[in-house]
């Protein structure tokens, strides 16, 4: 199966791991990620600047390209996913918004949110299936207690993201189970790490990040996984004393392709 893939700018710089493990693992699972040609930055922050149309155009371009190729669009970064999914939702449901965007992009023809957008985790759950993923695991991570950290962007706003229950999510826990490890349930797993205020109020960001790590450890976690570069940056910077890794790295390890990715 081929799908369109939007990596996003962080994955080409700070978060290269997230990107390359995603590629390799998808191959093993029979899915080819075709990177959108000439993709541009997703535009950053949907929620705080909804009325700013220009920054949404790059998302719409990516969505349109996937649509032209009759493919679903897969993202990995929590922030890109949030922006692209919300933009797509607005194209479907907000006529003023879609009219304006379509006027801006007149020469390319109209687009009304037809593309299916999947986060990589949703791709694993809905297109591959966690059962099938389990079969493909060659290095089961047996006995490892892993805490899934959702952060704030992956699941919310839940009515738009439609990924999982925003208060009691299971998708990453089921992912961890499929890899043979033991998920750790802890209260702070869907709280914000403070990423958005890390420049303005580093103390607050530190407080939030520490609360997450402390709570995960108290419930017995040996490792935290995340899908968000900003979360990872914050948790690590603020002194996480257990490993914080991208979920794709763990996936590559379980699928036995981590080493050749590094070569």
């Amino acid at each position, binding site marked *: 199966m081929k799908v369109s893939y939007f990596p996003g700018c962080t994955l080409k710089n700070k978060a290269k791991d997230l990107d390359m493990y995603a590629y390799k693992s998808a191959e093993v699972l029979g899915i080819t990620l075709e990177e959108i040609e000439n993709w541009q930055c997703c535009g950053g922050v949907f929620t705080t600047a909804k009325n700013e149309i220009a920054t949404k155009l790059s998302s719409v371009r990516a969505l349109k390209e996937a649509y032209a190729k009759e493919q679903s669009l897969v993202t990995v970064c929590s922030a890109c996913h949030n922006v692209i999914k919300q933009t797509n939702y607005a194209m479907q449901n907000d006529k003023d918004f879609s009219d304006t965007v379509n006027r801006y992009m007149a020469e390319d023809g109209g687009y009304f949110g037809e593309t299916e957008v999947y986060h990589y985790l949703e791709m694993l759950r809905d297109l591959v299936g966690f059962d099938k993923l389990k079969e493909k695991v060659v290095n089961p991570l047996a006995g490892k207690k892993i805490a899934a950290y959702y952060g704030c962007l992956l699941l919310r706003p839940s009515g738009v993201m439609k990924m999982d229950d925003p208060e009691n999510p299971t998708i990453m826990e089921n992912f961890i189970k499929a890899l043979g490890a033991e998920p750790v*349930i*802890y*209260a*702070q797993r869907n709280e914000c790490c403070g990423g958005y205020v890390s420049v303005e109020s580093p103390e607050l960001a530190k407080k939030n990040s520490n609360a997450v790590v*402390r709570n995960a450890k*108290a419930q017995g976690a040996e490792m935290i996984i995340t899908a968000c570069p900003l979360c990872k940056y914050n948790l690590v910077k603020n002194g996480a004393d257990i490993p914080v890794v991208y979920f794709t790295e763990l996936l590559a390890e379980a699928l036995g392709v981590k080493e050749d990715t590094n070569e």
Partner: protein
Amino acid sequence: MQRVGVFVCWCGSNIAGTVDVQAVSEALKSEPGVVFSANYQYMCSQAGQDMIKEAVKEHNLTGIVVCSCSPRMHEATFRKTAAAAGINPYMVEIANIREQCSWVHKDIATGTEKAIILGKAAIAKVNLNTPLTPGESPVTKRALVIGGGIAGIQTALDIADAGFPVDIVETKPTIGGKMAQLDKTFPTLDCAACILTPKMVDVAQNEKIRIFSYSEVSEIKGFVGNFDVTIKKNARYVKEDICTGCGACVEKCPMKKVPNEFNLGMDNRSAIYIPFAQAVPKVATIDPNACNMLKNGKCGLCARVCTAGAIDYTQKDEYINEKYGAIVVATGFNPISMDKFDEFAYNQSKDVITSLEFERLTNAAGPTAGHLERPSDGKSPKTIVFVQCVGSRCDACAEKGKEYCSKICCMYTAKHAMLTRDKYPDTEVYVFYIDVRTPGKNFDEFYRRAVEEYGVKYVKGMVGKVTPEGDKLKVQASDLIANKQLHIDADLVVLAAAIEPDKSARPLATMLTASMDTNDFFTEAHPKLRPVESPTAGVFLSGACQGPKDIPETVSQAGAAASKVIGLLAKDKLTGNPCVAHSNELMCNGCSSCEKVCAYGAITYENKEFRMPDRTTKIRRVAVVNPAVCQGCGACTVACPSGAMDLNGFASNQIMAEVDAICK
């Protein structure tokens, strides 16, 4: 040919406002069979009914068509009028020109045209009507109450008080239900056990009442007045009639690590157990999943210490058949599971508990002998946070919670908060709420006392997250009135979990063919005017199986259900509905199609001897309808491939005549 009278009702301006009633009665005058046609302001009034009676006498009418409101409203009224005038009541047809005509149309021309057409259809039908006589069936003068909580107990006591025998079927080893688990009751704060256990004793001592505890209803057949019920008495491995409830076996049982369901798993019981000291019947029960003797034949200690010789390891489930005239459903409620609400960390910390668990923690007969201690370390909590509406009024999360208000939580939370402040004044108590809903006699006064006299801190807003940290629970919440985030370090968090009907209700409804709403609450026959009757004749509703209810309301409804049952059992015979199916045996080929679609089990087959044209005889299998069981739904008439099945009062030729009249 019938002699038909047509009576067009104005219903004040309800019909006359959008239907030209004069034009309707004029137009219908020339329909076949019509010998009289008139209109009147209120046909259902005494004067209107007298007008019908007069016309019957004067014009020698044999059929009546009333163009008025829905037959659900006044069909019975006009049938009585007909009977009083000497006409068979089933010679009356109603053309509904209100709900289905005047109320839905805006202009007089359309309304009038449709009213005329509906009138013509009714006339076409009444021309083919035949007089029908309802059958009679006897009434078994015994009632069945399913569920032995306060609802079932009160209903049974009231029925027995009127002199009718009653059986209570209860799945647990004792009656008493949820109320037996409660500590104090609002708004008067009398202890639940003090007012409930005397009633339980009354039940046990009442000669008219039999208790089938540790039992369930496994099959229900029959119909109002004549239910045929199979009760499964689960093996409790103790002879109920011999056991004295002395408790020696409980003491000696070596298997003491079984979670005690009466205390919601907060302490342990033995494998042979009596749920609580005032249990009725006070007899022991062996839990087959925990007893070593039953599992692998090793032990037998309880049999050795039992001086009465009541222990019987070979006891089998027993099935009892009994006939009943009426059935009362009193299956009650349960708090919903907190698994899907883990933002409150119920599964992450022992110190996050539900309100029912809180009841046991403060109950003198509970696991801590009434001392408020944290389940994790036994320390007394200094800060308690109560969270209301957990899973209630949850429209955004319907798949995990309930859309409705659970109704009882505001009051019991006020009670918990107040009692905590009363017994432990140095405890800080917060209550988070969406709205405080305390209608009811002396209820709002009660809640205000909690706030004003006892200093409970009520905060409008919801708790967003509970994070266990060390021996504290970090509570993150919003105060919507102050518009700020609150961070509270609590020692105990109490969740007012939404309540839902007991899981046994759904299969029971199927057995009873009684209807339920989407939340599995039993539906009443009419939300205002018939609140304790199920739409299924002979089935009555008592307590929380019909909707969330507190104790005062439950007891009122229990009494009301009992009075309806008494009214039914007081009758010697019941008049049936004559509009039932019948089979033309000459046309029936015995294919069983009708039997398969009959939801009421009203159709059976018999082999009958028929004379053939050549004077030989032949035995054929034909369908027979039991008119007492048939509900007249008509499913069989549609399923019958040979057209042998027909419905009295709604015969195929009558329906076709109506359609013809409409399509003409």
